[in-house]
């Protein structure tokens, strides 16, 4: 079920009415949340519900086992990881792995390995990477004794399947969410308003900005002959950068808003990544729940920056490559991770962001530099093949061709809205406003009314959220 579908609106109304009727009865609330979440997920394909249930049962049992059988903690953790990573490998990576093996071994036709994989396994279940990571964080935290396992299966499944963030995050840690699920606190009027703002902002980002920028990007990338203008491709990549940002941050905002209305708090997932003045800064602002997950469960366990400079870089490279692979079973995503790793390494070796920070003008140059790196990396993320991505990057770096940006009036208007918003944040204007004063409260209400009106009249052609495929 998509947030931007009418059926979801009906679903949400029924859910919140039901939750209101159940009131403060904890078991009832957890049961209602789990049932609704299963229905939400099963609407897409009920068969894949068994995968979440399997994954959840394994982790729930493994965690209980860790608390009971001290000696077998490691074994239980390994089993849990095998089950989770195993299902992820089968459903998300089996096609990629076998296709690469086929190509390496020169197998084709009926002899190829990929032809022996049942079709069902070649369909990536929506949000598998999100809930698998969420479930993994639970067993790892229990193993590390950072969290006591829950004894209630209902409590656990309410956490794992929670519908606002089930299919596209943010990835919520068990130690953050499990205690919240046990607390029943009435939602204040202030929180209702905050939730409302999140939901409206989220829908605006997705339906107005992302869905209206999508046609520009699709037509540029699907054209059989690539446009030969350098400026055109920089323009298209700016459009894609905002498309993917608004698509994903929009989903996260809606999820956070819904959670607020339910009485829960989700972590911030995006913090204006395109105002970053270094790549390191970018990664503290982009998909924060995933970056921190990789930091805590991959980078730090590998040794982080504690084993000397070489291992510091090596661990960062491994983390970024795995992050690339997490996004998709294709070499383009791995290359995207590698490009970020390369630029991050360069940044650490040269330490240029520190130099650029000294003067305001240099800071702007630094910002341009970071954005250029991010845009070049996005080419690999978006292109269907590495060859095509290289072609586009070559055109971008040739600085030749026509001076036509390719945005048209539609693209220009929607991008200008985003530029203005990010500029207000970067210059700190937003923080200087007293939003609680009567004047600004009215301004805020009119602004949000206008956003709702824009969602109605400037909605683009509805499409799935990009991050569903991950």
């Amino acid at each position, binding site marked *: 079920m998509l947030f931007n*579908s*009418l*059926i979801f609106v009906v679903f949400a109304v029924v859910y919140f009415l039901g939750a209101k009727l159940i009131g403060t009865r904890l078991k009832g609330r957890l049961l209602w949340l789990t049932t609704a979440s299963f229905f939400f997920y099963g609407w897409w394909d009920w068969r894949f519900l068994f995968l979440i249930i399997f994954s959840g049962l394994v982790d729930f049992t493994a965690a209980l086992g860790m608390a009971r059988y001290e000696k077998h903690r490691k074994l239980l953790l390994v089993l849990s990881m095998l089950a989770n990573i195993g299902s992820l490998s089968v459903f998300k990576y089996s096609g990629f792995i076998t296709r690469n093996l086929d190509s390496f071994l020169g197998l084709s036709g009926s002899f190829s390995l990929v032809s022996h994989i049942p079709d069902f396994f070649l369909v990536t279940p929506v949000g598998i990477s999100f809930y698998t990571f969420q479930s993994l964080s639970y067993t790892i935290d229990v193993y590390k004794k950072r969290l006591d396992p829950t004894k209630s299966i209902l409590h656990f499944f309410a956490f794992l399947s929670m519908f606002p963030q089930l299919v596209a995050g943010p990835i919520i840690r068990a130690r953050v969410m499990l205690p919240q699920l046990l607390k029943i606190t009435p939602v204040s*009027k*202030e929180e*209702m*308003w905050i939730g*409302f703002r999140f939901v409206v902002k989220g829908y605006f980002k997705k339906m107005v900005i992302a869905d*209206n920028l999508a046609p520009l990007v699709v037509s540029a990338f699907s054209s059989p002959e690539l446009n030969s203008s350098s400026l055109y491709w920089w323009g298209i990549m700016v459009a894609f950068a905002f498309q993917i940002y608004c698509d994903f941050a929009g989903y996260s905002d809606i999820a956070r808003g819904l959670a607020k209305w339910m009485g829960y708090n989700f972590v911030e997932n995006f913090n204006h990544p395109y105002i970053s003045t270094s790549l390191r800064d970018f990664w503290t602002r982009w998909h924060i729940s995933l970056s921190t997950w990789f930091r805590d469960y991959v980078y730090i366990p590998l040794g982080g920056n504690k084993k000397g400079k070489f291992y510091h870089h090596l661990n960062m490279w491994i983390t970024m490559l795995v992050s690339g692979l997490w996004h998709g079973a294709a070499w383009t995503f791995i290359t995207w991770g590698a490009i970020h790793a390369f630029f991050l390494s360069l940044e650490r070796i040269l330490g240029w962001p520190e130099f650029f920070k000294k003067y305001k003008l240099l800071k702007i140059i630094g910002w341009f530099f970071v954005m250029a790196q991010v845009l070049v990396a996005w080419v690999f993320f978006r292109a269907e093949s590495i060859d095509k991505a290289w072609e586009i990057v070559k055109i971008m770096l040739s600085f030749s061709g026509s001076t036509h940006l390719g945005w*048209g*009036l*539609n693209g*220009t*208007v929607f991008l200008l809205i985003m530029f203005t918003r990010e500029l207000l944040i970067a210059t700190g204007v937003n923080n200087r406003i007293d939003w609680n004063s*009567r004047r600004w*409260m009215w301004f*805020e*209400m*009119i602004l*949000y*009314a*206008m956003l*709702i*009106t824009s969602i*109605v*009249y*400037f*909605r*683009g052609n509805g499409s799935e959220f990009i991050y569903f495929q991950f």
Partner: protein
Amino acid sequence: MGRHSDIIVTLLIASVLIVVLSFVLPKNKEKYLHDRFWTQKTFAPAKYQVVVLGDSRVYRGISPEVMEMNLPGMKVLNFAYSNGGLNPVMFKAAEEKLSEKSQKKIIVLGISPNCITAFSQKNEQFQQERTRPREDIFERLYLNGILYQFSATTPEGIRDLLKKKPSTSYYRNEYYSNGYVESEKFPVDTMESISSYTQDFTNYKVKLQYIERLAWQVNDWSSRGICVIGFRPPASTPMRTLEDSMGLYNETIISARFREAGGHWIELKANRYKTYDGSHLDRKSAIMLSNDLALEIKSMLSPEKKPVQ
């Protein structure tokens, strides 16, 4: 003012804005009619005595309403799709639309060259409609009327509205629930489609295997008492020449094979009909073609009466 009341006030302001703008902003009627039309065509549960299959030449060229006037007591459905290939997927879907209780069951096949090339065998439009998500189908069938009032627009749409640019050309489509799309285009350019068809026939030709598969189906239907009628949808003379030469469409062979398999082939006088782009019939010609076909069918059903042309 409490923060909670903010939501209600905001929603009230938004409602006022939305209602006011619904009178001002341009509406995309075509999109909503188009969407509902295709969903209805694909999912409507009604059953018919006559089902017409083919591609865009058929859904723009045959009016079931006109046919029904000449075939009293018979319900006709135009079940053609864009790039509709004549293959088992469509044969099965068409058969499911036939009324089981009816004594007379007729399938009319508009066999254009495009229908029997590899290109159309994917039946992309039909498959796209058939696999549409449930909520989309519901929205298109039952909520289109409301959504139309709040048609989405773009900055470019608003710019055009402000400029009030008078249109010198138009392409008008009228959608009928019986599957027919009445089409008119201005200015008429009978050579318009030639270049795209030249491109199509460079890559795809009429294939014998599709003719044979069609013949097998005609034979199967005939043996089960379903009357099968075939014809070549009319097009402009240059288009027919192109189809015969580049597309390798041989009407003599196809009609002979069709008759051999038990079907009835209707020979049409191509120059009786006018197209607006070389490929699709204009409104008047579509009515004429529907009339002609219905009369031919009528004469087949009661052989003693001769059709009037």
